């Protein structure tokens, strides 16, 4: 019937065409006769009304959850943007009651400590990720994966406490190195887990082809797996860097703070108390001086821009991976 043959001759021709038309319509859209508005959006039936109200509540709550993000960004642009000038990036923090000033040393300090932490974590994290992706389900691999997951939720302040006990007390003073090591504990799990999943996503046939050509595992890893997984690994590194750049708690009593450039006797020195943007925001926000509070807002704007840009760069790498 459905293939649209002409109706049998006994039936009146008129009825035949009607039937035919209905059939044609049904074949075009099997749901043509169903009134979806009535089924889904009827406010007079309790079941559908309940569904609609809950849908609106959920939409409203999602919107509400996003308000803080925009509120923070607006406030940063409004209060931090007013203060923005080139001097902020070149001058040193002002003393109380002093006007002007900047936070050039804090920007440098943040970059140095995050760079130090990256130098420590990238080899460690990526090679651990290689091991996890290659070793599969061995007991050590399961243990490492579990520790990495537990470390992702490790309180940042405890990384600071650890670095204080292990480095500051041992070397006898607050330093950029202690701050960098505290940050690296927080970066490590992100890098391990993202590099593992990036390497695991490399098609198995590429790895098999490499082994089939007689490459050793090291050659396979260095020449096939790592280059192919590079965008994913870089995403992980960027996310970890963004997180570390914004961390305050681990730096509070490892790098402390400083009103001066990272140097002693005119030489670049990593074993000095070091300023960072995050700690500067924390210290200045609690001061009763207008100038310091304004500097804190400007520093927050710079920090957020730094973190968001790093985040977005990381996400653009992961898009490359998807396109491959």
């Amino acid at each position, binding site marked *: 019937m459905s293939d649209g043959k002409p109706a049998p001759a006994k039936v009146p021709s008129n009825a035949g065409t009607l039937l035919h038309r209905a059939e044609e319509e049904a074949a075009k859209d099997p749901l043509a006769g169903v009134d979806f508005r009535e089924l889904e959006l009827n406010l007079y039936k309790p079941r559908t009304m309940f569904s609609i109200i809950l849908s609106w509540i959920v939409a409203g709550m999602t919107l509400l959850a996003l308000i803080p993000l925009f*509120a923070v960004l607006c406030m940063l642009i409004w209060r931090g943007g007013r203060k923005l000038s080139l001097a902020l990036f070149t001058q040193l923090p002002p003393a109380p009651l002093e006007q002007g000033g900047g936070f050039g040393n804090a920007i440098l300090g943040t970059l140095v400590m995050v760079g130090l932490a990256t130098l420590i974590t990238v080899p460690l994290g990526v090679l651990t990720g290689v091991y996890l992706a290659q070793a599969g389900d061995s007991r050590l691999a399961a243990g490492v994966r579990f520790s990495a*997951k537990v470390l992702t939720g490790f309180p940042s302040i405890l990384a*600071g406490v650890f670095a204080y006990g292990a480095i500051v007390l041992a070397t006898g003073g607050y330093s950029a190195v202690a701050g960098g090591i505290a940050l690296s504990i927080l970066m490590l799990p992100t890098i391990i887990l993202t590099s593992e999943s990036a390497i695991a996503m490399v098609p198995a046939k590429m790895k098999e082809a490499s082994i089939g050509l007689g490459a050793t595992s090291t050659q396979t890893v260095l020449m096939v797996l790592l280059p192919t997984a590079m965008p994913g690994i870089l995403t992980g590194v960027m996310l970890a860097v963004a997180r570390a750049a914004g961390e305050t708690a681990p730096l509070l009593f490892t790098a402390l703070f400083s009103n001066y450039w990272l140097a002693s006797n005119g030489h670049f020195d990593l074993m000095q108390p070091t300023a960072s943007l995050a700690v500067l925001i924390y210290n200045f926000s609690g001061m009763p001086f207008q100038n310091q509070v304004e500097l804190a807002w400007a520093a927050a704007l710079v920090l957020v821009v730094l973190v968001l840009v790093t985040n977005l760069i990381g996400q653009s790498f992961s898009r490359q991976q998807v396109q491959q």
Partner: protein
Amino acid sequence: MASSPETIRAQGEVAAWNPGQIWQPPSSAQRWIDRIFRRLCVAFAALTIALIALLVIEIGVKAVPAFREHGLGFLYGRTWDPNTAHYGILPEIWGTLYTSLLALFLGSAFGIAAAIFLSEAYLGEVVFKILKKFDLHFHPIWGKLPEQLELLLKNLIELLAAVPSVVYGLWGLFVVIPLIRPACNWLHAQFGWFPLFSTDLSGPGILPAVFVLSIMILPTITAISRNALVSVPPKLRMAAYGLGATRWETILGVLLPTASRGIFGGVVLAFGRALGETMALAMLVGNANRLTVSLFSPANTLAALLANSFPEAGAKEIPVLMYAALVLLAITLVVNMFGALVLERAAAKSEAK
């Protein structure tokens, strides 16, 4: 296989690039490098486990003197006085749990709602309907809009987690507190007999801290819950629709129960985050050694205590603070391990299906 001109050229290039080596088995030097590299990978991996052990040992050993001196009484003492060397962290433990639980309550409600909104693709659906009205829904550029907006919304919620906590603290201090203060003081004036409103908000306090804390844990809950909801097999949803269930009967009756393990794991992990969160609390909770249920009263948490006391601590106070850090470490490790286990089980179960 007949060698085409291209393959011959390719072979020639390879030979010129690395003449005579490419078809040889690995030399002994290469095998040594391979062996060393593998060992290095294993060693680095083992280092991750060792790191956790090292963290626990380092903090534990430094806390031993304080443990000897103050014993378990430290856990239920209520005073913190460096001058008389009387230390107790009951108010801090209470403050940590109280603020975290309240923030968890608020963050879960909004986080799970956002996860449902994202996993049901409401936004994409609405945009698709609007495009359909203009007959643009298969347009090569406009047709991609619903998908792109969904992705944008997901990324925006994830960006909430990218803002550094100290910036949230600054925002809370100068925006949230002045904003909610009149309402809080009105509540105290009208309903002061109610324990939650028994003090007024004179500056930093529990409520602004909870508010900011819940924003910070929301993205964790949303991301994990959304994953759990999306990985519910589509046939379950189809079956529910086929039986005549409405969208929300399906969500409440089928999707949420099926995804409940994953969602629960996410909530537990978020709880771990809330317990260990430092800066927003150090700036907003008021840093007062007080045991209270009032939402508007200043209080203190373990992490905030460490952040505020450590930089100025004398040599005698350091072991005591290490002891407090050990307590925080124990609480968060237990919560995080529990959350990771729950999520692992949930993943194993959904794979088994």
